[in-house]
């Protein structure tokens, strides 16, 4: 089918309008969709869907397609990418190189000069691994498997020439991405191609390509941001209008503060009343650097950098905390830190290999853009519940999936109710909940709203009552196979009407209605549940516990909860507003006291100080990499790099840069050729620190109690080894080479890792260790070595069953144990002593604790 379509594509440009191209300017790119299957197409007769520019002829990323409310959409598959460019060339002979995974054609001045064949969808796993590429003595980056290189010798005359590339991206059974689609050009005298484009286009070497690729990712992320904000301006205005039109409610009264307790804002008034009533003492205030470390972790998920610390300390003491908060809530990492939280609560669970273990699609991407754009939180909830957009590539539709689940909407109903109403319906999944005011029928009525139609109760969602089996203690009024109609099941519990029409209506009326009930300004429960989640995240323990199951808990400070919920609603459901209130309180700005586990009963929650917290798994691995100045540098979350399978079977989650980008590595097949060793070394640390690689069910609380394995995996594992390793890409190598004194080195090291200066005994200890070898530490004449990691790009799903693929990955695993290549610019003795210093600091319990 695909082949016949590709074979019949009309490639001729004769009918294309003469492009008006600026000489030497950026490359003009257009995207065309909805090619009629089996029919010839004529680009001239089609209207492009997107137009944009690229700085050179490499098309690694394409713009995300957005709906009017900014949610990501799927493109048609296949779609066409057309790139056109005109420039003056000097007369001579040139060789053009067309590099593509699928069908592409290259035209010079309207004449076809090179083409590549359509990619075939693959259904096998036991293709041979292609032979290793002989690099010879050319620095050319070889074509990644299974890309094709098509070379075209061309004679160019002096003056302007026009080059046009047309490429087919995706197609049935193929991954809809361009891969390493590129065009290179070189003269006889040049050793290596340059990407086609302006004079300063990068060379087609590994380094040139990787730098371009990274820049391209950044550029596209930035342009996606601008485009979606522009495209959704109208919708954003509608949401603002909705908030403005909501009748203001009178603000709750703030109690007067009892004497003798510190007050920074209204939150403290509420807290101090209870502290005074129980004559409890509050903990001491954090010092400035402790505060900065805590609030930076809470906003960005990272420890502060030395530059941030310096800027902060430069600020006037009176205003530095508030200034830091204002800077931090607008830091792009704000979105990263929130995504990891909602991945848990909303059970985001993408599978990179034929997903079938209660997997969802990767709605992480839509969540990330939502927090990045700081859309009002009620809008976030409405769009989630509406479940539209791309299912496989990360729109809210991918929330609706639950592979191998007997009733995905029932699973989602439970998630939505826990997340936004604090109503845990899990027990009602299979029977009437014995200790919650919910019947199984309630859950399925809510599920039917998400589904948009009546639902039949699957027999597997019931408690079997077979003969000889146990007599269940739980019962249900429903029978297997019974039909349940969509209905809002909380009318008794939450006495409010729905909030009428939403700014953007989804196709499903019942989803709209459900969203309308949830985010109604009269739904106090919704606002309270969300602010309680925010409070718990920053203070370590909620005002209501368990935060996801309110029918079992009581508020420790009911008036404070009402106050925060009122603030949240009045701010137009702005999470940043609530966060700032909490950060500004004295309650937040003092030392931790006790653990969350000690304070599960509401009477025990006084907030004399926030509860102790350890860094989350994401904060830990992200902060470690930040401290060392090293990227994750791990494999792409993708088991089909060849791109010859459909995204329904294999999704590409990209090259992780933050902890939340990772996902279960899905090697249930236990096959060495499917291993991703570097990603695994990060996942190993994260899973020990409470991160769930598989989020089959929603969770508000992680299982992250301190354990010996946490200590050991960091102390001995590959990740810790890489962080402490003084390789030429380590920031610590840089400061070791640069510092004039051993004391300055130690101080900077402490600042980078622990956000503080060493105390006297610490300084003395490390001075003792480092000083004897410090003066002679630099090896004269030694140069920095490339830290580039060679991962064999030939292994893909299509050949992972070959013996060679197994051997390749096993060998990579063995090599990885040695960590990154050490620098040769420092003497071995000094390097080892300083590495041990770094090791001791990152493994000290202080590092992983939030101050």
């Amino acid at each position, binding site marked *: 089918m695909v082949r016949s379509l590709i074979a019949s594509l009309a490639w001729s440009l004769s009918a294309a309008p003469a492009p008006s191209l600026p000489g030497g300017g950026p490359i003009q790119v257009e995207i065309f969709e909805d090619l009629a299957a089996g029919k010839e197409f004529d680009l001239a007769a089609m209207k492009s869907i997107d137009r944009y520019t690229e700085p050179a002829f490499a098309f690694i990323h394409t713009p995300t397609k957005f709906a009017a409310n900014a949610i990501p959409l799927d493109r048609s598959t296949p779609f066409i990418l057309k790139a056109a460019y005109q420039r003056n060339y000097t007369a001579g002979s040139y060789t053009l190189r067309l590099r593509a995974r699928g069908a592409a054609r290259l035209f010079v001045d309207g004449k076809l000069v090179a083409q590549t064949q359509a990619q075939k969808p693959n259904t*096998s796993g*036991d293709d041979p691994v292609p032979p290793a590429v002989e690099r010879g003595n050319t620095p050319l980056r070889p074509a990644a498997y299974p890309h094709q290189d098509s070379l075209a010798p061309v004679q160019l005359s002096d003056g302007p020439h026009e080059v046009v590339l047309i490429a087919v991206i995706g197609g049935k059974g193929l991954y809809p991405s361009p891969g390493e689609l590129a065009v290179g050009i070189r003269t006889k005298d040049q050793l290596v191609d340059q990407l086609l484009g302006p004079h300063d286009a990068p060379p087609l070497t590994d380094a040139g390509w990787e730098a371009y690729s990274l820049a391209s990712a950044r550029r596209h992320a930035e342009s996606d941001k601008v485009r979606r904000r522009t495209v959704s301006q109208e919708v954003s205005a509608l949401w603002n209008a909705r908030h403005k039109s909501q009748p203001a409610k009178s603000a709750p009264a703030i109690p007067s503060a009892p004497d003798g307790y510190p007050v920074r804002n209204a939150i403290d008034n509420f807290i101090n009343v209870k502290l005074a009533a129980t004559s409890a003492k509050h903990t001491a205030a954090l010092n400035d650097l402790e505060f900065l470390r805590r609030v930076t972790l809470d906003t960005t998920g990272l420890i502060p950098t030395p530059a941030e610390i310096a800027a902060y300390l430069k600020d006037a003491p009176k205003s530095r905390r508030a200034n830091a908060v204002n800077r931090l809530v607008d830091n792009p990492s704000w979105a990263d830190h929130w995504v990891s939280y909602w991945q848990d609560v909303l059970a985001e669970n993408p599978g990179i*290999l*034929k997903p079938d*273990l*209660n997997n969802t699609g990767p709605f992480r991407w839509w969540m990330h853009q939502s927090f990045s754009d700081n859309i009002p939180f009620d809008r976030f909830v409405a769009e989630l519940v509406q479940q539209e957009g791309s299912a496989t590539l990360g729109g809210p539709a991918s929330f609706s999936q639950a592979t*191998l*689940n007997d009733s995905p909407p029932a*699973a989602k109903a*439970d998630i939505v109710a826990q997340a936004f109403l604090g109503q845990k319906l*899990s027990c009602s*999944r299979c029977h009437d909940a*014995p200790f919650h005011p919910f019947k199984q029928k309630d859950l399925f009525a809510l599920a039917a709203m998400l589904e948009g139609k009546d639902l039949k109760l699957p027999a597997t969602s019931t408690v079997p009552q077979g003969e*000889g089996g*146990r*007599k269940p*203690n739980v019962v249900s009024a429903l029978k297997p196979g019974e039909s349940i109609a969509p209905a809002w099941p909380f009318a008794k519990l939450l006495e409010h009407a729905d909030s009428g029409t939403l700014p953007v209506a989804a196709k499903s009326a019942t989803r709209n209605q459900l969203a309308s009930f949830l985010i109604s300004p009269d739904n106090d429960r919704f606002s309270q549940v969300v602010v309680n989640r925010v409070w718990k995240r920053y203070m370590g323990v909620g005002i209501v516990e368990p935060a996801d199951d309110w029918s079992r808990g009581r508020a420790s400070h009911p008036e404070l909860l009402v106050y925060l919920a009122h603030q949240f609603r009045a701010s137009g459901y702005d999470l940043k507003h609530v966060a700032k209130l909490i950060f500004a309180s004295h309650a937040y700005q003092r030392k*931790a006291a006790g*653990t969350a586990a000690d304070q599960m009963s509401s009477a025990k929650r006084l907030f004399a100080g926030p509860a*102790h917290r350890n860094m989350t798994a994401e904060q830990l691995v992200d902060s470690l990499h930040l401290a060392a100045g090293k990227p994750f540098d791990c494999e792409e979350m993708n088991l089909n790099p060849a791109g010859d399978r459909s995204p329904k079977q294999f999704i590409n989650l990209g090259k992780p840069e933050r902890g939340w980008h990772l996902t279960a590595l899905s090697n*249930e097949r*236990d*096959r*060495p050729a*499917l*291993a991703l060793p570097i990603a*695994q070394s990060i*996942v*190993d640390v994260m*899973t*020990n620190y*409470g991160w*769930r690689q598989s989020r089959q069910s929603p969770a508000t609380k992680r*299982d992250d109690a*301190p354990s*010996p*394995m*946490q*200590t*050991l995996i960091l*102390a001995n*594992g590959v990740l810790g080894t890489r962080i402490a390793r003084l390789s030429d890409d380590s920031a610590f190598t840089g400061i070791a080479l640069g510092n004039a004194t051993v004391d300055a080195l130690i101080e900077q090291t402490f600042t980078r890792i622990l956000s503080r200066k060493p105390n006297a*005994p*610490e300084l003395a*200890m490390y001075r003792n*260790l480092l000083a004897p070898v410090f003066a002679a530490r630099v090896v004269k004449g030694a140069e920095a070595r490339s830290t580039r990691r060679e991962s064999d790009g030939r292994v893909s799903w299509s050949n992972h*069953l070959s*013996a060679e693929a197994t051997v390749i990955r096993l060998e990579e*695993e*063995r090599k990885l*144990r*040695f*960590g990154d290549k050490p620098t040769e610019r420092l003497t071995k003795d000094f390097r*080892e002593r300083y590495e*041990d210093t770094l090791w*001791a600091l990152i*493994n000290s*319990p*202080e590092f992983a*604790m939030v101050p």
Partner: protein
Amino acid sequence: MINRREFLATPLAAAAAPAKGKADACIFLWLGGGAAQIDTFDPKRRGDGKKVAGAAYGAIDTAIKNVQVCEHLKQTAPLLDRCAVLRSITHPIVSEHAAAANLVHTGRTPSGTLQYPSIGSVVSHQLGSKTEEVPNYVVMGYPNITRDPGFLGAKFGYVYLTQTEIGPNGLVRPPDVDSTRQDRRETLLASMREGHQNRNAGDAAIQAQGDVSRQAFRLAGPRFMNVFALNRESKTMRESYGGEFGQRCLLARRLVQAGARFVEVSFNLNFLNGSGWDTHNDGQTNQHLLIRDLDKAFATLLLDLEKQKLLETTLVVIATEFGRPPEFDAGGGRGHQSEAFTMVLAGGGIKSGLAVGATDDLSKKVIERPVSIPDFHATIHNALGIDPHKNLYAGDRPVPITDHGKIVQELFA
């Protein structure tokens, strides 16, 4: 007032319970990919590798009367009286490896309301640790969610290794850190830890954090690591076990000897035939190499355990996610079949020397005594003295160890 746990956990209706087993450890050999019962432990008439369905190899007699195995299980055949061959395993998940592997490891399909623990985690949770000298639950293979502790929590997770030569992940020091360097590191760390504790003298959470760190290094001390040192075994012993899979089995024996409760040994030596036990197409060509490797390692393990007087208390299991049909695919290999396939139990004090259940003349359908995955789990648990109907708790919610699994009573006299 009756509390939630008590209410929800009212005991089951009494059923005649078989005698509880006395095993205190389990070695779980995992043939990932779906081992063909017809080419291993449930041989039938020969096929031709193309159109005519049937076994790929001849069959040989075993120590159990009237029970044959394939000709490549030569060393195992005379030891089969130590085993119970469950030839009537059946479950409904045939298409997807991950889903079937998950079912065989957890005994359940995913529900979306909680994540079920693997059998290794359940055993580790139920039997507790015998000693601090060794991890309770060890996996030799890739970490994945089918092996995870699920709602039981990280405490009941596993230590894993992917290659015996590399050693257990997180427990082995990096190759360039010798003991002198390690001492230096730990001295520096101890000082950091104590400084932190002293500066926060009254704070219990900080004290606890430091104590856990200290305990970790004590645990992973030299004695602990010796268990993983295969070079402490004689050359003859190592060679008798065979290749990497055999070495893993030898390590499993060392771990059990030292007190581990559950050791899962994955047979994923895919370089032998490319596909491992997932013998579609070409994978079939060299399947006999896998079978011989299994044979050598399994037989040696049984004899070694016997010699060490561990066989009576160590249940050895051969498990796989599904079997394979008697027909051949276009490439001369085999597809998947979950309706009827074989698992093997050995040692562990069970009544051995028998085949349980039977399949039809081409091992396509169970014709006698079907055994479900919950039944298979219930049987393993019973051999280990664990009540398969006992409730575990996901928070307050009771979850029986098996989903109505029925113990294979014939194995418990």
